[in-house]
């Protein structure tokens, strides 16, 4: 067998991410025409900062998709649960120290995801049903905690979120998350997680502790979604109980755009992060057209159409690529 070059191996292993990067490139070209100010330091910074909550949530559901739990519907409401509890419960209790707030946000994310993982693995209920239940329950609880948008975030967090420069605290959070992910992919845990996702039975008979790996994967997902809730709170500096469903849909769109296999085992944040940024850019791009009151409908419509188009392309391009490789090989 011919040894592939480093670059060749990288491109063939990352073929799944073509659609997301391609879409991102197209959107950036459109923006370059419609809104050149995006290509200033603060423009890019603003885009990244506004994408951070979604990016973190998408990273979270990437982990659960990789381990074979499919799409996590509960991610959006879970992020919002962190948001409303931070501005309502913690703020009302005068708890505002960074340590307590961060511990709460990450801890509650991990806890709720681990509870779901235990229901999935021990009671063996279909993941989609479990996460749907969590979606519904959390959406309801969020409205009980905070009936309408309002409340106040701790001042330090609001300041964190208000930065729009390219080195704002939020972009640093983003860079930290990406570096953390990179380190995570180099661990044996990540290898095990992918192996469980791609063939749970093989992993089980080979002695991989499948249940534990799945629970840990959901825990890591909770950590990232909790961080997403924190970033979201900083960004809007208040609470908004109504955005859970929107975030779930946007996150799943980004996940699928990013080429992550919903059957598990394949893909990574190399696809889902550009996917998340592309999803953010779609709505940004559309605001450059004056759509007036139609805007929100058009955004949803474009999500749907772009998703289908991107998927068609992501099916066609890798197969063309493979054919080319075969032709080369023979």
């Amino acid at each position, binding site marked *: *067998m*011919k*040894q*592939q070059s480093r670059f060749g*191996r990288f491109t063939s*292993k990352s073929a799944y991410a073509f659609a997301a990067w391609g879409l991102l490139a197209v959107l950036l070209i459109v923006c370059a025409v419609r809104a050149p100010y995006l290509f200033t330091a603060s423009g890019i910074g603003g885009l990244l900062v506004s994408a951070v909550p979604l990016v973190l949530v998408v990273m979270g559901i990437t982990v659960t998709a990789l381990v074979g739990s499919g799409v996590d519907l509960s991610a959006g409401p879970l992020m919002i649960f962190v948001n409303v509890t931070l501005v309502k419960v913690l703020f009302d209790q005068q708890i505002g120290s960074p340590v307590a707030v961060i511990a709460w946000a990450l801890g509650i994310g991990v806890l709720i995801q681990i509870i779901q993982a235990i229901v999935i693995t021990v009671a063996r209920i279909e993941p989609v049903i479990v996460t749907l239940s969590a979606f519904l329950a959390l959406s309801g609880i969020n409205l009980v905690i905070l009936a309408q948008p309002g409340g106040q975030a701790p001042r330090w967090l609001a300041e964190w979120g208000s930065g729009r420069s390219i080195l704002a605290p939020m972009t640093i959070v983003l860079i930290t998350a990406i570096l953390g992910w990179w380190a995570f992919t180099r*661990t*044996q*845990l990540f*290898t*095990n997680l*992918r*192996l469980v*996702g*791609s*063939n749970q*039975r*093989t*992993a*089980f*008979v*080979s*002695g*991989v*502790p499948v249940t*534990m*790996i799945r629970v840990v994967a959901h825990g890591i997902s909770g950590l990232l979604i909790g961080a997403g809730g924190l970033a979201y709170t900083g960004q809007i500096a208040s609470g908004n109980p109504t955005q859970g469903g929107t975030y779930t849909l946007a996150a799943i769109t980004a996940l699928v755009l990013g080429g992550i*296999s919903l059957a598990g*085992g*394949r893909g990574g944040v190399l696809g889902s992060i550009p996917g998340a940024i592309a999803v953010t850019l779609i709505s940004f791009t559309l605001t450059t057209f004056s759509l007036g009151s139609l805007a929100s409908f058009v955004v949803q419509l474009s999500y749907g159409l772009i998703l289908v188009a991107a998927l068609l392309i992501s099916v066609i391009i890798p197969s063309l690529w493979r054919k080319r490789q075969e032709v080369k090989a023979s």
Partner: protein
Amino acid sequence: MVNEDLNLDSAPRAMVAENHETAVSIQDVKKSFGETQALRGASFSARAGEIHAIVGENGSGKSTLAKIMSGIVLPDEGSVDIHGHHVSSPAEALKTGVATVFQEVLVAEGASISDNVFIGSQGVWRSRMSRSEQHRRATDVLEHLMGHSVDASALVETLSLADRQWVTIARALVRSPRVVIFDESTAALDLSGAARLYAQMERLRSEGVCVVIVTHRIAELTTFADSATVLRDGIDVGILRGSEITESRLIELMTGVKERSGLAPQSRRLSKGATADIVLQAAGLVATQGARPSDFVLHSGEIVGFAGLDGQGQAEFLQTLTGVRQAINGEVTAVARTGAAHPISNLAEAITANVSYISGDRRKEGIFPNLSIFENFGMPLYRHHRRAGVIDRTAISARFDAMSKTLKLRAGAPSNPITSLSGGNQQKVLIGRELAQDPQVVALNDPARGVDISTKRELYAQLEHLALEGAGIIYLSTEIDELIGLCDRVAVFRDGALLGWVTGDNITSDRVLAGMFGHLEADFDVEKALVEQQ
């Protein structure tokens, strides 16, 4: 019948090194899966530094025994002791030093070859070996096993099936195991590959590892197994050691000496034999890639058996004959009673020509599990029994009653789900479904898998009845016993092609097995032994 065989255990054991400790000890293990009893009190023990084979026909429980040793299946009763440990999960098996290569080629698609070799053995959090080291070792081990170089960082699905099997073998070997179980591991390998695997087994033995091989290919183990435990119907019926391991002794134990006459009671039909009318014929048929072309003729009133080792192409051949599978080359023609010839190249043509195919894999290819017994039976009849476009349930109901009477169906209300029936009764419904369409040719692909003996006999009687009425029947079975007494002729398959025929009184376990297995004995003249055309 069992008692007679038991004293074989007291035969001299001088052939085996005495000072090796017992590695595996299993006592009176029982295990049921639903209604099927896979193991009914089997015992097994093997020592370190020996190659110990577990032999038995399909369904004798040998794979279940291997799974119990690997911690994948937990026994209902009985004790399992491996090097003093009680193994109750694959992770524990791993710790105890048990490595298993399964019959199914279990790889994690989407992961690299190297990850697939080291899956499970590297701990949960931190790997015991750096990735580059893993990569290097995987490349080394696989090159040695496969006989050609390989890029261990490539995805595992870029490999051929045989090479994926080598990946699972390498997975067992890199664990430095104390007990290695090979469950039918040569199935996906060619002859030279099998030879390389035997060399590995002998190396392991010399290192004091207990090597357990599970197989029904008996010829391959007469040469190098130190001991062989024979299983029949979920019970161990004897242990052979050293030079006692011969094909004839193994076959005797596997099939049971007293049962040589086969499962089907001697038929009244056989003397009448087949008629001269051809109902189905194939010319130059190639069903599997790379097989020799084969000719085949089925007469009216004839029951033909298909035999062969698993994966020798008999099932594919049967499916091609019945239009279920596309032929690679050659033609199949059904001849109607009127003399008209119908070519068969797909399922629709087979249905018009009244050629039925009944699968033994009920769950996958037979039943509609969420529908009722009645609906499962009536499905293909809806086309025929219609009044002004509305399904005539009364007519179908009458046919259902007739079917359940002739097939002695043991079922509750017809509206109960089909899954409420036992496997044998589900099979009856499926057979009834085909028979209700008045087939001219009935091809059965191992229909009696997991069916109890009395139901089997009812099935045989039904097939004979059908043959007497002029249908041609092809019966593929993985148990040779089934074919004896039932079939007029048995076609033996090897390497995807029809190798030869065994006819009439010559249909005995020994002869059919000889045809299936003989290829590993150098001086065995297969063609001469088998070509006994009528």
